[in-house]
């Protein structure tokens, strides 16, 4: 039976960590039993490169050193791989135990558990996240992982994107700066190379694979506010403009909660002044006969347009 991959990775990691001098690929191949099973040089080389990448993903810093005769040697230096001392009190330890349970994305959920294991091995006390609070960060969008890595490694990406109201996706070329999750949905902001400007994309509208396309060309700003842009589309940015509507008594609580002024009209109706942001017409349409728009005329026309379409069926 083939030797399990975890055993092979573990042996490679231990050899690289326990040596004080660079060890050559030849030496590693000779000493790690799992590599004996690989007969061709080509498959060994491929396996060795992949194994090194896997260990680096776990945080191991592996140095490559070229010797005088041109052969490469590898080692994981003690000083470069050591976690600096970290002392957490029980509340802090419990806080991290809670944080470690938050991710629902597979890669980061495992990474969070791994981090907690390293910290506990380093002496951080075991504390349970004893809390009736359960925060969750989902990231079911297939593009998430590739974009997270591209953001970290400063790589431009190409993907197909379908705008909210577009029939077909279009190719986009982006230098991704930041990812943000708002109301459970992920967005990416960055420099759109084709448009030469900052753009925000919603990850669920990316279709197909995210492909890496070289490094960044534009300067990355210190602060990227994704949420402000998205909130504005959602009609929630600060707006000084208001609309006047009539609302049937005892209905439309969320409109009342947002209203800047409310005045009773008669036994049945109130008049409200509400912030007029993007998408207000669609929201008001939901209330059907319980809302009447008084002003502005533009909002009234948009709402009537929606209602007429529904009335036609």
């Amino acid at each position, binding site marked *: 039976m083939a030797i399990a991959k*975890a055993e092979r*990775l*573990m042996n490679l*990691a231990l*050899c690289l*960590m*326990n*040596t004080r001098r660079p060890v050559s690929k030849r030496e590693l191949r000779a*000493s*790690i039993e799992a590599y004996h099973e690989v007969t061709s040089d080509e498959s060994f080389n491929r396996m060795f490169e992949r194994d090194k990448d*896997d260990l680096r993903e*776990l*945080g191991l810093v592996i140095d490559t050193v070229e010797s005088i005769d041109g052969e490469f040697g590898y080692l994981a230096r*003690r000083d*470069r791989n050591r976690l*600096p*001392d*970290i002392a957490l009190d029980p509340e802090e330890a419990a806080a*991290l135990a809670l*944080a470690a349970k*938050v991710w629902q994305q597979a890669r*980061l959920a495992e*990474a*969070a558990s*791994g981090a907690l*294991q390293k910290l506990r*091995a*380093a*002496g951080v006390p075991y504390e349970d996240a004893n*809390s*009736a609070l*359960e*925060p*969750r*960060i989902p990231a079911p969008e297939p593009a998430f992982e590739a974009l997270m890595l591209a*953001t970290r490694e400063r790589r431009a990406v190409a993907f197909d994107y379908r705008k*909210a*109201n577009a*029939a077909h996706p279009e190719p986009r070329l982006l230098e991704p700066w*930041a*990812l943000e999750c708002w*109301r*459970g949905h992920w967005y990416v902001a960055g420099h759109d190379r084709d448009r030469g400007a900052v753009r925000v994309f919603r990850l669920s*509208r990316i279709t197909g694979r995210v492909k890496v396309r070289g490094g960044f060309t534009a300067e990355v700003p210190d602060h990227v506010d994704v949420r402000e842009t998205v909130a504005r589309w959602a009609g929630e940015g600060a707006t000084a403009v208001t609309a006047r509507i009539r609302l049937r008594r005892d*209905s439309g*609580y*969320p409109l009342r909660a947002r209203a800047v002024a409310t005045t009773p009209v008669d036994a049945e109706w109130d008049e409200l002044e509400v912030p007029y942001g993007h998408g207000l017409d*669609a*929201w008001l349409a*939901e209330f*059907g*006969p319980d*809302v009447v728009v008084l002003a502005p005329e533009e909002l009234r026309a948009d709402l*009537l*347009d*929606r*209602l007429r*379409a*529904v009335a036609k*069926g």
Partner: protein
Amino acid sequence: MSNAIDQTRRMLSLVTYLRERPGARVDEVARAFGVTEAELIGDLNVLPLCGTSFRGGDLLDIDTDGEHIWWHNPDTAEDVAQPLRLAADEATALLVAARAVANLPGLREGDRQALQRAAAKLEAAAGEAAGASGRLSVTFESEGSVFATVDRALTERRRLWMRYYSPARDTLTEREVDPIRLFAVGHTYVEGWCRLSEDMRTFRLDRVAEIRLLDAPSDPPRIEPRDLSQGLVQPSGDDPEVVIEVGPGGRWVAEYYPHDSAEEQPDGGLRITLRTPDPGSLRRLALRLGRDGRIVSPPDLADGAREAAVRALAAYGE
């Protein structure tokens, strides 16, 4: 079931952990590592097959009697048993989550400060591995004062009274609720036993119009909490089916409503089939969609939306 990379990560930490704790108890180690005892024994079976020298020999002499774990030659492996630095993924995962939770409006000040202190220490210890964590951020929406009241009710095991907004019916109802837990997935919710509906219910905090702590003790029936990893809305197969046809401008419906299927249409739109215990709640959706989509079935729901639009238009003299 974890993959080879995660198992390797865990075994490397185990080596560090065991070196400092001769005779560690199997149950305690499993708990600290967040794995079952069987998984831990699986790791302990692999470790003695791992050597620390490229010259051969020097296998880790680690064994267990099923209760305690012993390492007989830790001195051969001093360099491999040091605490290991965090990977970029690891630092990112913990830091982003800790910052997101620390920013939850209504969180107890002590909890917030513990999260902030822990994040600061972790960031310092992670060094450059923490660098990329600032590129990722998560906001939980919450109503601070409602959150704090629910949190207090949970701690003091007290019943809550609230006026709650139901968008499906556009009404406010008064309810008494025995809270069980708070959870945040984008928005923040309280799950509890609703004494009005005599059922487990989930309430979104930003739809709570008014809330009060009652003197009565909270006494929810003992029910296994729902598994939320499959999503908040989990329609049942017995629920009525609704078919909605949308044009390109209504494709967002498929992003917001869990559905059974969404077939592409020639015009770039979708034909969406979903199930809901309360189809009437979708009348709002039909009105909102306007020319971007329409309910195909059930027919009475389609008629209800049409009739509501006709009545609304009457107010404008149409």
